[in-house]
C-alpha cells in the first residue's frame, strides 16, 4: 500500500551543532611543531631499516613498522615541488584567498612530501620540479602554519 502523503504540514527546523574540542599533537607532533616555531627548523624521522625519512613525523615507519620515534634528522628548509593543485574556490575555512597553490614539497633529506601553500609564483606558471624554500611565520600559532608558505628559491 502506498502512503497517502500530504505535505501541507511539512516544515524545516533550523539547527546548529557547536562542539568545542581539542586535539593533542602528541609528543612527536609537539616536537615537530616546536622546532618550526622556535628554531625555524623542519625535523623528520628516519627509518634506519628502510633508509626512508618521513615528514610530518610518525612513530613507526609506515613501510616496515619499525619504531623510529627517536631517530630525528634535520631536513632542509628547501625542497622540490613534486606536485601541486590550484585552489580556485573560496570558503571561510580556507587559509588563503583563492586562487592559491597547494603543493607537495619534498624537502631536502626527506622521502615523503609535505603539503603546504606555495606563493610568490603565478598559479598559471607553476610547474612540478621547481625548487622552493620555507618562509616562516612572524606570528606563530602552534600549527603547521608556523611555516607561512613556501616560495620559489
Amino acid at each position: 500500500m502506498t502512503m497517502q502523503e500530504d505535505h501541507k504540514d511539512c516544515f524545516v527546523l533550523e539547527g546548529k551543532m557547536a562542539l568545542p574540542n581539542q586535539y593533542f599533537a602528541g609528543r612527536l607532533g609537539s616536537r615537530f611543531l616546536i622546532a618550526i616555531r622556535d628554531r625555524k627548523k623542519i625535523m623528520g624521522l628516519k627509518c634506519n631499516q628502510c633508509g626512508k625519512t618521513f615528514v610530518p613525523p610518525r612513530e613507526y615507519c609506515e613501510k616496515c613498522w619499525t619504531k623510529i620515534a627517536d631517530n630525528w634528522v634535520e631536513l632542509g628548509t628547501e625542497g622540490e615541488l613534486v606536485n601541486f593543485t590550484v585552489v580556485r574556490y573560496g570558503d571561510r575555512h580556507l587559509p588563503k584567498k583563492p586562487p592559491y597553490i597547494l603543493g607537495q614539497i619534498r624537502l631536502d633529506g626527506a622521502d615523503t612530501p609535505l603539503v603546504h601553500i606555495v606563493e610568490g609564483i603565478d598559479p598559471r606558471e607553476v610547474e612540478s620540479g621547481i625548487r622552493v624554500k620555507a618562509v616562516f611565520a612572524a606570528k606563530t600559532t602552534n600549527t603547521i602554519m608556523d611555516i607561512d608558505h613556501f616560495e620559489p628559491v
Partner: protein
Amino acid sequence: MKKHAKNGNVAIIGIGQTSFSSHKEDQNQVEMVQEAVINALADAGLKIGDIDCIVHGNMELFEMQFAPDLWHSLGTGAYGKDEYRITTGGTTGATLVCAADNLVASGLYGTVLAIGMEKLQEGNTTGGITNMADPLWFRNLQTGALTGTTSDGACAMIFTSEEKVKQGTKNPPVWIRDHIQVHREETIPNLFGFNKPEMTHHCAARTLFARNGIQDPVAYFDVFEMYDPSAWWAVDWLREFFLLKGDEHLRMLEAGDFDLDGRIPINPSGGVIASNPIGATAMLRPAEAALQIRGDAGGHQIKKEVRHALASGFGGTFWTVLMILEKELNWQEVNHD
C-alpha cells in the same frame, strides 16, 4: 526458529590494548590506535602484512574529527587494504567484533583486524550524545549526559578462520560461537509506560541461548564480561541477561554468586565503570572474556577454568550485542536449526 548457522568457524587469535586513562596528552589519535594494533599483532605473532582487512570503529562526534578511519590509517595499517567503518554508539566495539566475525565466517577474508578507539578527553562527549537525539523531538528536552566514566584508549583484536588456526597460532585460539544484535524502537519513553516491552537484553539472551541449546546460562557460562555503564544498571541487567525472575538476581548478588570466586563471576576486568573509551569499550568485553579463556588475564584471572564465556555490549537507546566465546571447537552438534 530460523536457521542461524555460520559459513565457517572464526577464532580470536590476537588481543592488544593500550593503557586507559582520563588524559593522554602525549599521544595523538593515530599513535594511540597504533599502540593497540602493534600489541595485537605481537600477541598473535603476526605482521601487518598478514592482515587481509581492517574494521575500524569509534564515535566521530565525540572527538569531532570526521572520517577518522581515513586519517588513522597510518596507525591501523589499513593503507592498501580493504577497510570498513563501524559507528554504533556504545555498542561500536561489540559490533566491530560481530562484523569481523561475519567477514571471516563468510569466507571473504582469512584474517581480519578490528580496532576500536576513543579519545574522549579531546571532545565533548555529553554534547555529542545530545546531538544524537532526534532534533525534532528529543534534543531540546534531553541533556543526554554520559552516565559512565570517560577515558582515552584503544583495543585491537585479530580474527581468523578455522583453516588458518589449523596451520598453528602463537596463543590458543578462542572461538566465537555465536553473536546476536538486538535493536529497539527508537522512542525511549515507551519503556516507561505501564505496560513494558521486553528489554533488548532479555530478547538477545532468550534468542541466543535458545538457538544454541543453552538451558541454564548461569550454570553453562564460567564468566560474563558485561557492558555496565553504571553499577546500578548492571544489577538490573543481570536479571535480563540470565533470564531470571523477580529478585533472583539480587539474592544471587547477596549470596556472592557474581563475585570473582562465585558461580558466575561478573567483570573481572573491572568493567565499564573502570574505563570507558567508548569505541573500544564494548570490544574490551569479548577481549577480556577471551583472555579469561586463554588464562592470560593476569592479575584479574579468575581461579576456576574458563571454558565458556559470555560478553555483552550496550549502546544508544538500549541496543544490545551479546556473544558466546568458547575454549573448544566442540559445540556444533548442539546447534539447533
